[in-house]
């Protein structure tokens, strides 16, 4: 992610400003009941991500987004089929032993949650794709976030990738020794690699503690190229946009009724 962040066109934007902007949009998406607001914030998130990566979203990130959307679709599908028994049902029945009672309200609620979640994911990814961890840590420090949290974020981030790298090396090594020859062998190989990574993590922690001490680490990861500080403009734009979207939400509450949109497709009478 850091690699992507350092090559981002938004890397020099103030990290605290970006964070405020993203949080403001996410919060306003949550506090309004209109579907229009999360749709707008989703569009902003996608646009920012496209701008940040210069329309070159890496495959791994695209897959991650795709996976998140799939999980959200399943989750929202579950919400949509668990409507209130007192409301008239659009679709009633059973899926295996699960009772299905989809109502107009539950269907619309599911779409609202879906768009809120997807908007949140894209906004957070737009932020993550453009903000290297040292910049984020510096932003946390500037808002007086406890150093125990900030420095832990940096450490975990750094070592999570080292461990992942190690895990992949172990998997390759297993493959070189026919480690995937049959389902049981493959499971054993994965299990071995996971256990090996866990043991290695403890060894790495010990060695890294010593290495950090040798480099005069004093509980603080300094930043060489300081990121920009947040200007008043960031606060004005973020809060201004959030307020504007809130009012948009107030007046567009009944603009989009997803149940009505889908009614002709499924033959629902609303």
């Amino acid at each position, binding site marked *: 992610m850091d690699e992507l962040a350092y090559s981002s066109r938004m890397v020099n934007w103030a990290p605290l400003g970006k964070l405020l902007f993203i949080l403001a949009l996410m919060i306003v998406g949550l506090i309004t009941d209109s579907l229009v607001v999360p749709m707008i914030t989703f569009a902003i998130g996608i646009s920012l991500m496209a701008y940040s990566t210069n329309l070159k979203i890496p495959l791994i990130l695209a897959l991650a987004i795709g996976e998140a959307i799939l999980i959200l679709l399943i989750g929202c599908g579950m919400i949509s089929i668990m409507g209130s028994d007192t409301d008239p049902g659009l679709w009633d029945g059973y899926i295996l032993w699960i009772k299905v009672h989809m109502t107009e309200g539950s269907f619309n609620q599911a779409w609202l949650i879906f768009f809120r979640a997807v908007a949140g994911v894209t906004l957070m990814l737009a932020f993550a794709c453009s903000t*290297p961890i*040292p910049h984020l840590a510096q932003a946390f420090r500037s808002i007086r976030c406890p150093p125990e949290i900030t420095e832990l974020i940096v450490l975990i981030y750094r070592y999570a*990738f*080292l461990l992942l790298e190690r895990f992949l090396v172990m998997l390759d090594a297993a493959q070189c020794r026919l480690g995937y020859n049959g389902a049981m062998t493959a499971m054993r190989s994965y299990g071995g690699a996971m256990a090996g990574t866990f043991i290695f993590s403890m060894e790495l922690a010990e060695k890294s503690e010593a290495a950090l*001490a040798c480099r005069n680490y004093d509980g603080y*990861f*300094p930043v*060489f190229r300081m990121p920009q500080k947040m200007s008043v403009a960031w606060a004005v734009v973020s809060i201004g946009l959030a307020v504007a979207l809130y009012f948009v939400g107030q007046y567009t509450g009944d603009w989009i009724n997803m149940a009505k949109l889908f009614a002709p497709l499924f033959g629902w009478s609303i």
Partner: protein
Amino acid sequence: MTDIFKLENVTFRHTPTAPIVLNGMDLVIEEGTRNAILGANGVGKTTMFYTLTGVHKPQEGTVYNRDVPVEYTKDGLRSLRSDVAVVLQNPDEQIFCSLVEEDIAFGPLNLGLERDEVERRVSKAMRDVRMSEFARRPLQQLSGGQRKRVAIAGALAMEPKIMIMDEPTAGLDPQASMEVMELAEKLHLMGVTVLISTHDIDIVYKWADQSYVLYGGKVEFAGHIDEFYSNPERVYRCGLLTPSMFNMNRDISMLDGMDVAPYPRNCCEFTAKFGKPSRSGKVLCVPVEEEEALGKYEEVMKDMNGVPAGVYGPDARFALRSKELEYQFDAIDSCFTDAVRGKDAVLFHDPIYSKTIEEQVEKLKAIGFDADVEVVR
């Protein structure tokens, strides 16, 4: 000379039930010397380094830094570590930041230096290890050898008084290994005490003043290494082998009925001892600063038809990278070997290495060969 480090009866084990790693170790490191730490795997070299830097506190015995016992307090350790830089065996254990320049700046920033000074040190260290063009590159994109260079640059940027390098050439290609040894030599010439642990016995054989062989958690041998290598049983017991140069000298001396001493440490000394040279070729030494190197090269080489030229030192090599020189690495040895063979050679080098060249001339003289050296100012 002052003792920069002294270990007195130091005993260390990682946990109370673990085997003893350092077993009553006594060791003295003199200031400004080139030291090689040798020994088989698992003999305690890295543990000894961590003990010297105060990372490991010995259960028994005392560690002295400049004759003062190391204080295991925050201030005491900070003061000690401001003077000592360590390059670890595995660069991934040492590298913490995402970008090359960020990581190199990590140590100097921890020292609380001014931003301008940090910038200067980072830029210098990156150039010394030939990583300037990778300054803004994420570390995950680098190869193992490049990460090693970043780790070395991180230590160089600390501008330490004592440099500890744990297997600095492991995993590096031959050229990069030679560059690391050049850097170690440069640090030595700048007055830094350098400690190198390595399994590359050939490389340190020609470089170190003092060698320490560890065995069974103790210093089995300390001093000039030829004495140690002359006892094959002891060498094998310590899990080591003798360097090729030592073997060749011993065997040819026996064949020719000559005394094994003086011990040649490199090719030119070996050729001088056994080649029976009649006259010396001239070695034209040209100390060059980076900015004037190209001009001096053109000036000196215009009258040197067919005379081979070599370059020594990171700055001179960087400045003359566009020129096709015959000896790009280990050029002092190569140029003086030419001289022993009666051929002339031109040696461009960073000015700081003049003392190394003088040392080489002295060593050749001790073997009985007077090298003809001219220094172009």
